[in-house]
């Protein structure tokens, strides 16, 4: 299973795949912008503030998607010891931290006009914040070791343990709130969302997922170049400088 996953991933991350993915992302993001800003009507109660839904929810989705990818890639690294899995975990964690922070910031911006406060200790917000802190720690661990193999092993362990901590954290935070206050305010019950808004939301989720794949792909290429530059610096047998390798990569991409 691991090898077939690697084959698919290899095809997407090839230069041609990356270019196609980049254009697809751009088109999808434009479609999502049109859907959320033009096609979708303003919300009956919240007015235009509700349009934050179309980027807040996709960002939160990417937060959880990316850390699930870190989890799977970490296990795959520990099982196969192939550097590509470590690079995937690193790339996904970086993109994940970015979108987790974005989801929290957007939620905060949305909370101010709707709830009247920038911050509330709602279980989902709190869990997402803990998640952000755990993966900031993950990125800090990646900077600890100067040996690439050891860095990969340590990061993989944190990637596995950190993800397993999430359900327990969510449970504890939910109970912590639940015992003291009523259930969280539900802005949009599953059944009450208008169909056009649902389409706009799905477009946003799709576009952000493509964006995630594109950013990870670019970061993977950067990771490969970094590794090659380091390897080249350590063994100058090729007689090539790191710049030459970068140029080679650029010309291979057309």
């Amino acid at each position: 299973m691991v090898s077939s996953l690697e084959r698919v991933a290899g095809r997407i991350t090839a230069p041609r795949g990356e270019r196609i993915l980049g254009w697809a992302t751009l088109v999808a993001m434009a479609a999502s912008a049109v859907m959320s800003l033009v096609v979708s009507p303003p919300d009956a109660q919240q007015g235009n503030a509700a349009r934050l839904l179309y980027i807040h929810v996709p960002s939160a989705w990417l937060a959880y998607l990316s850390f699930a990818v870190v989890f799977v890639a970490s296990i795959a690294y520990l099982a196969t010891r192939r550097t590509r899995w470590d690079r995937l975990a690193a790339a996904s964690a970086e993109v994940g931290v970015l979108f987790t922070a974005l989801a929290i910031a957007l939620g905060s911006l949305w909370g101010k006009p709707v709830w009247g406060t920038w911050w509330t200790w709602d279980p989902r917000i709190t869990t997402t914040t803990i998640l952000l802190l755990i993966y900031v720690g993950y990125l800090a661990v990646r900077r600890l070791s100067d040996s690439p193999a050891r860095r990969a092993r340590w990061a993989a362990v944190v990637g596995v343990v950190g993800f397993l901590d999430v359900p327990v954290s969510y449970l504890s935070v939910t109970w912590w709130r639940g015992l003291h206050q009523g259930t969280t305010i539900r802005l949009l019950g599953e059944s009450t969302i208008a169909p056009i808004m649902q389409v706009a939301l799905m477009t946003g989720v799709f576009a952000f997922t493509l964006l995630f794949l594109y950013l990870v792909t670019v970061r993977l290429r950067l990771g490969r170049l970094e590794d090659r530059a380091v390897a080249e610096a350590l063994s100058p047998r090729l007689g090539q400088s790191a710049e030459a390798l970068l140029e080679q990569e650029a010309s291979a991409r057309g």
Partner: protein
Amino acid sequence: MTLVGQSVAIAAKDLRIEVRGRYALGSVLPFAGTLLVAFGLSLGPGRTLLAETAPGLLWLAVLFASVLSSRRAYEHEGEDGALEGLLLAPIDKAAVFIGKGIAIAVQLLALELAIVLLVSGLFDLSLAVAPLTLVAALFLGTIGLAAVGSLFGVLAEAPRAREAVLPLLVLPLATPVLIAGVRATALATAGRAGEAGSWLGLLLAFDLVFVSVGTLVFGFLLEE
């Protein structure tokens, strides 16, 4: 030697070092005491506020003490290539995790005895209402904190380690212990120990996850 025997041998070694070096007693306990006094100063002399926040302050002191103790558990392994010796020893790597975890837990329990008495004295926390629930919460919480500390303490010995990395990693991971410990303690000291059962269950679940996962993955941290 069985896994249990190996773990106990490592725990005994670490505790012997502690008894001779007195780090927990000489440094961690005074630190926890200073922290509690600082909490008191920052929250003002109002007795009701202090009594309400006492369970939280108690667990924060325990949490910080656990970070210091887990860092210490691997600090002496960095000297004179002791860690290499430990790795070359014909023992299961999981035994290092379990043994160090036991040693950290024993030290923490001893520290908690003093911390609880301090909190009770400084902030008016009533210990006698439901002592069994209180002891259960502290015991279960300590196992979880010791497991996290024993697993990740080794990272603090990296050549490029920064002081902040271990707390940065441990504090968010230990959120469930902090929340459940504080809630169980608050209920136990407020005479509502009967409602603390689910929090104790949560602490137990955290312990099971971290002890079992730690045993499985610890070897990966130590490979060279």
